[in-house]
């Protein structure tokens, strides 16, 4: 069977790969958006925390025998705690400064984290053995869907939706939204905003680590894995605008899909298509698809 002259097998496989990339874009840009909303910091170290997540899963399996499923819960928790500590002792000093300083500071932080892992594990990739529950796959008739990849998409959709519900529909989420709009006023209502900020950074970073654990079995685990990805995620964030949680999620999946489609029709352009879309969005709607017009 052919779609636009292309075998449906190839077509659907690329769409699936695109959705997987989109899942990572969505989780990472979601974390960036939450952090930026409250802290006004573009967390350049986000890619490093994603890498930490993948290495965390790998090291726990190798040294402690902790399996993938446990790592999915433990690693984000540990990395999130690390994020809380970093917020408390490093980031807190620069909130009064121009936002650029936050970006440069976290850039430096990312360099340090990645550098440490490059010293210890070199620049080549390490393999994370596929957890038993994710081996095999489903034959859908028109394509073969590996269980590991299906799981990544399902898990990321669930995490994104849960985050959206937590922020838009719960009490703590309402505090977060209030503090994002008017921190001083929120504090006047007796809400501990500094604590909220610490937890928010921890949560955003934990999301990145969760994405890293998801990535461990399907990509090779190496110290640089987050460094190029985070810049693409910046483009995603510019396209979506950082103002909206659902916007970040939708834009992430959408762009992954577009990237997958480009791979079908014009493979050479697939690594640049997101940047081209960014250029078009800047021309047509500079504030981003979901951003508030500035």
């Amino acid at each position: 069977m052919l779609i636009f002259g292309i075998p449906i097998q190839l077509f659907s496989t690329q769409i699936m790969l695109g959705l997987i990339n989109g899942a990572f874009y969505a989780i990472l840009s979601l974390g960036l958006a939450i952090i930026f909303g409250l802290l006004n910091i573009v967390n350049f170290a986000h890619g490093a925390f994603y890498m930490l997540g993948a290495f965390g899963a790998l090291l726990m399996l190798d040294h402690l025998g902790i399996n993938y499923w446990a790592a999915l819960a433990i690693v984000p928790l540990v990395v999130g705690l690390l994020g809380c500590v970093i917020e408390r002792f490093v980031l807190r000093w620069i909130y009064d400064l121009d936002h650029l300083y936050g970006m440069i500071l976290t850039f430096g932080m990312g360099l340090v984290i990645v550098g440490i892992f490059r010293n210890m594990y070199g620049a080549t990739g390490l393999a994370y053995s596929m957890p038993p529950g994710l081996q095999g796959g489903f034959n859908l008739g028109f394509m073969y869907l590996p269980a590991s990849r299906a799981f990544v998409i399902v898990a990321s959709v669930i995490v994104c939706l849960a985050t959206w519900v937590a922020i838009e529909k719960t009490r703590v989420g309402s505090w977060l939204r209030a503090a994002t709009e008017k921190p001083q006023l929120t504090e006047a209502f007796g809400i501990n905003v500094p604590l909220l900020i610490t937890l928010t950074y921890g949560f955003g970073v934990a999301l990145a680590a969760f994405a890293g654990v998801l990535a461990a079995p399907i990509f090779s685990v190496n110290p640089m894995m987050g460094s190029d990805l985070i810049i693409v995620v910046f483009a995603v964030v510019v396209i979506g605008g950082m103002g909206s949680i659902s916007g970040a999620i939708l834009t992430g999946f959408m762009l992954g899909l577009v990237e997958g489609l480009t791979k079908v029709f014009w493979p050479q352009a697939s690594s640049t298509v997101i940047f081209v879309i960014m250029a078009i969005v800047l021309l047509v709607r500079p504030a981003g698809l979901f951003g508030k017009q500035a």
Partner: protein
Amino acid sequence: MMQKNIPASSDAAAPLGMSRTHLVLMLVLAALVVVSPFTLYPLFVVKVLCFALFALSLNLMLGNLGLLSFGHAAYFGMSSYAAAHAAKVFGFTPELAILFGVLVALALGAVIGALAVRRKGIYFAMVTLAFAQMIYFFSLQAPFTGGEDGIQQVPRGNLFGLFSLRDDMALYALVAVVFLLGVLALYRITYSPFGQILRSIRDNEARAISLGYRVNGYKWLAFVLGAGFAGLAGSMKAIAFQLASLTDVYWGMSGEVVLMALIGGMGTFFGPIVGAALVVWMQNELASFGAWVTIVQGLVFMFCILAFRKGILGAVGQLLGRKV
């Protein structure tokens, strides 16, 4: 807002409108450029001068407009590819190859700048970074860049078809002259009425608009000029080291040049030169320690942001009570 940035020059009577402090600094700089190849390894100084010009080109926007072009390596790297290709494949003489590199950087800066100035602040940084990454992916695939190998064994050629640059000192003389001219040009731009308008946009954009300035046009021109000088630095580096490679378009290079401006003092004119010398020296010293360079750079970044935002020359200026 950004910390105190490049102040206006006060004494208009001095040459090029320099204050006495700046005149002294300019003379010291020129003296250093003349003397250093006799005491240091000339090619090391060439590297410092190329990166110093690169860092100054970044600071044209950062210091005066408060806008960070976080993908500045795109212009540096692309122009070094262009110059290397022109010298090696087209057989251009070095001055034409460098000119060609600068033109490519200007054109690239004109396109990316027109898009980037549509966003402000932190988004501007992200947009420029993302476009630079696009240029990197393009360089990775394009046939003329040589992929992972880069363009190697670029001929230095004969300047104006007459003077051979094979000798390191001859090459040094060329780089030194271009560097000093570049510094003078950038100085003149910074303290021209155009530079004043850039700083007024930085300090109060709404007011600049209400006074009738087309601020996006000014930002764009500053961006294009910055890209052009980055291109000058990149082209010279390609000719001098006979190599254009992916390292020069990668985001790591963009980060390094930000570090140079930051260490030296982005609120000063001469600071990026000091920063460039320090960073290049540090890389030389740490070259054999692998990823430690990255770790040290990261730590220096963090230290500068947390505790040393004025940078070296900014701190010196504060001590002396003068604008440096």
